[in-house]
């Protein structure tokens, strides 16, 4: 079995954004459960936050391919 050990590092680094995205959506679900009418406003904020947190994982992936 051949492979590049950098991909293990990428897998480990993906934990961070994973936790971040989990926290963002946990807060989103909490917010909607408390105030269902705020859903539309919260949704775009949550997805924006999700995009920012996810960017780090995507950077790692792209760095792996160009390295």
């Amino acid at each position, binding site marked *: 079995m*051949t492979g590049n050990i950098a991909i293990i590092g990428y897998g480990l680094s993906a934990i961070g954004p994973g936790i971040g995205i989990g926290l963002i959506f946990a807060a989103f679900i909490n917010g909607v459960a408390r105030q269902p009418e705020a859903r539309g*406003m919260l949704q775009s904020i949550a997805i924006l936050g999700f*995009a920012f947190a996810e*960017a780090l994982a*995507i950077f790692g*992936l792209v760095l792996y391919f160009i390295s």
Partner: protein
Amino acid sequence: MSITMLAPTGVLLASGGGEGFEPPGPQDFWQPLIGSGTWAFTRPMLLWIISVVALSWWFIATTRKAAIVPGKGQFLTEMFYNTTRNGIARDMIGSKEFLKYVPFLFSLFAILLVNNLFGVIPPFQFPTISRIGFPIALTAIVYVIYHYIGIKKHGLRGYFGSFVPSGLPAWIVPMVLVLETFSFFVTRPLTLAMRIFGNMLAGHMLLLVFITGGEYMLLHGGIGLKVISVPTFLLAFIMTVFEALIEVVQAYIFTLLAASYIATSLADEH
């Protein structure tokens, strides 16, 4: 650094087949149709042209005879337009100035949505955005637009001035200015292009791994691998559905971020 591990022994070891399994890589995304090298006409180019033709046809066909009571096609187009106009443009840019940017955001969302969904629609099966040139071109358009409207609204000096929030201590202003300038000119376009590119590439590669891996295990593997290939294919189906969801969300995020960048360029006070 590359390591070589010993192949695992036991029932899972491929018994027949001869040559080993070739895992899919970035090279699978280079698919020239006509010619080769720099000027080759590739598969994503063809898909892009198809998407432009299909979208133009669809929007003209559904809105040419627009009725007060909409038919199915017109209803779909109007729903999509409503999402972009109210859900993205008005929420992000604000109700005063958003109308000017709705056509741009609408075309951006439409073309991204169709091209992303090409990744899972059977005859096409290739996400156009997984070739880096396409997101770079789209990001360049967004980049020019948000800088242009920012400079037009505030003037060159005022535009750079608007990067720094008012009411900061004087010694911290240069630092914030450097950071924010870096964010406006480097980080933002880079993340915007990389995000959608990385998602499309990784998602499609995941599907390739499951499907080609499942095919290899089913056809060339021993009895243990043949059994395992069944859940692999099952997972490939689930992943395809998940991938479709990701593709819609990524098209939405790209448009949302474009709208948000336009909104920050237009904002009067931080």
